């Protein structure tokens, strides 16, 4: 690992964190070569997380779009209800090897926080989760779950009180206690080696999905779609298809749908490269290099940066990045629920909305595999309120 994805990535951190990051990288490499670690991880993924998760063929969504068949990879069916647990279990095991009993983490939608809380409860580690106050309000059920699972939840009032500010608070806490604490970062963002470690722990999604799709269909999908906030579910999913003749599409949050005029969280579409939270990547920033406000109805996508590997794939064209607005995500949220019996997380609903857009341009008979990264129980209150509001506005 050199910590670079083309001209992105790196380790732009306080000197205080360089030692702990080097230690983490070294231990990660040792762990990968240790059958005891890999076997324990596989066992936990099977017996605690509930892997493998299935793939599901959709019967209505997509079929009407030019006869295109949609398939979902069901990360919503993992324990705790989203892909975040794959990484949380892996890093919690690493922390255990490092002798660090105290875990800190950030969370946006609360899914990573819940996954960390569950993993720590199961492995006997102490968990503290930083969450923006705005996010805590719109994802209240997950705050309750984290507390029930024994984690301390620290609400963050700084900045916009969302994901970026929760990461800032967690990094500051890590700088204060680098020797005793492991920062269990939940996405493919931050300084090296996090983007690589998190992607590798999430690569189980792509490995399973590729094999399952081949078994069911006798061929690979034409398109693979995933939502991209920080981008960990997409990075894990795409990792298995990088050498295949498969079109890869990442869906960012277009928020209010005003394109580049603000009110979104789509740095890969409207941002420019810069350095935030330890890594060089596409960012939403102003002419002075200050980080800009973001908006998405999905807290897990509401972030001004993105994983550096995605920035590299944008430049090389390996992955195509499109966007879906709050409205389009709500449509997909409602449609997948009513027509297919699956309630997606609002983040994952962006992937479904993006897949439906892609499907419209596909040849008849094409297949599209969508990573359904999480389930929507956490979003019921805010999604129902938004749908009701929309109905009232249209009267």
């Amino acid at each position, binding site marked *: 690992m050199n910590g670079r994805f083309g001209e992105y990535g*790196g*380790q*732009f*951190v*306080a*000197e*205080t964190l*360089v*030692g*702990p990051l080097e230690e983490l990288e070294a231990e990660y490499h040792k762990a990968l070569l240790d059958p005891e670690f890999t076997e324990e991880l596989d066992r936990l993924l099977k017996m605690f997380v509930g892997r493998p998760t299935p793939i599901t063929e959709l019967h209505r969504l997509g079929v009407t779009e030019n006869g295109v068949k949609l398939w979902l990879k069901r990360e919503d069916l993992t324990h705790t209800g989203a892909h975040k647990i794959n990484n949380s279990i892996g890093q919690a095991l690493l922390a255990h090897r490092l002798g660090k009993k105290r875990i800190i983490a950030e969370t946006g939608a609360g899914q990573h926080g819940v996954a960390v809380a569950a993993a720590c409860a199961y492995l006997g580690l102490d968990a503290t989760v930083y969450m923006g106050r705005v996010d805590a309000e719109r994802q209240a059920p997950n705050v309750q779950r984290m507390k029930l699972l024994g984690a301390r939840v620290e609400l963050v009032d*700084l*900045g916009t009180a969302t994901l*970026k500010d929760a990461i*800032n608070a967690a*990094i*500051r806490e890590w*700088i*204060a*206690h*680098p*020797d005793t604490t492991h920062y269990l970062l939940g996405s493919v963002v931050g300084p090296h080696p996090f983007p690589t470690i998190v992607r590798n722990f999430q690569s189980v999604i792509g490995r399973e999905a590729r094999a399952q799709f081949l078994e069911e269909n006798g061929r690979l999908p034409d398109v693979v779609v995933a939502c991209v906030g920080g981008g960990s579910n997409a990075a894990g999913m795409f990792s298995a298809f990088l050498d295949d003749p498969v079109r890869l599409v990442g869906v960012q949050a277009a928020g209010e749908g005003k394109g580049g005029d603000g009110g979104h969280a789509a740095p890969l579409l409207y941002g420019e490269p*810069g*350095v*935030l*939270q*330890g890594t060089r990547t596409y*960012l939403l*920033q102003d*002419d*002075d*290099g*200050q*980080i800009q406000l973001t908006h998405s109805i999905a807290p897990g996508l509401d972030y001004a940066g993105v994983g550096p590997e995605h920035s590299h794939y944008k430049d090389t064209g390996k992955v195509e990045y499109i966007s879906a607005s709050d409205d389009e995500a709500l449509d997909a949220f409602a449609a997948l629920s009513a027509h297919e019996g699956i309630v997606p997380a609002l983040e994952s609903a962006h992937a479904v909305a993006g897949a439906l857009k892609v499907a419209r341009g596909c040849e008849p008979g094409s297949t599209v595999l969508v990573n359904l990264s999480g389930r929507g129980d956490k979003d019921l209150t805010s999604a129902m309120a938004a749908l009701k509001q929309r109905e009232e506005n249209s009267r």
Partner: protein
Amino acid sequence: MKRLEQTFTDNRVKEETTLVAYITSGYPSLGETVGLIRAAVDAGADVIELGVPFSDPLGDGPVIQATGQAALDTGTTTAATIDVVAEARAAGVEAPIVLMGYCNPFLRYGLTQLYDDARTAGADGFVVPDLPVSEGGPWLERARAADLGQAFFAAPGSSPERIAASSAASRGFLYVLAANGVTGVRSELDPGIDAYLERVRAAGDTPMAVGFGISRPEHVAALHGRTDGVIVGSALLRAVGEARDAAGRRRAVTELVSSLKAATR
């Protein structure tokens, strides 16, 4: 760069600790910044560290975060901060001024332009808290070309090899983090600080300046002879924040800097 080196050399000869005073550019307003620099220098600050505000200052505690946000709210930018340096020089400030700021606003400004403009304005160097030596290559190249200082960091947990690398790469001084954590007032110095400072001293010849948690004259006095310099930030800005008007803010700087200066001998 010569002025910065000379300051540390002169104080070493006099057996005085070099006093670095940190001030956030644009706090509480751009109009007051030169006056506060002037007050600090007149009260005995040997070097001014002028902070360029950033929306996400990961190395800073609540006091400096708040001053940075207030400065951003009144429109302080990197360009405006470079202008402050030029104004301070025009107002007769002769002490070295180093610019402290995070990577992103500086990268956005453009490194070549940044170092050239800083030099033209009369700045003496840069301190970039999210830039470890391993990422510092392009920055050092610009610093050398513009003959400006570039401070890298040592942390309590840094290996001897890393401290040596940071010290060797630093131009002007090595910023020695007195403790883990972010900037902020701490009541006591870390009990292990003497051994740590000896390790840093043994790692290289670059002048050392110790910062993070240095807030009182007794801290400065305790460090006499153990470091070339000390850096005081949050305590100073807290005093500025507590004063009621512009004259009070200058007086607060004068009083605290004078008392710290008295402890440098």
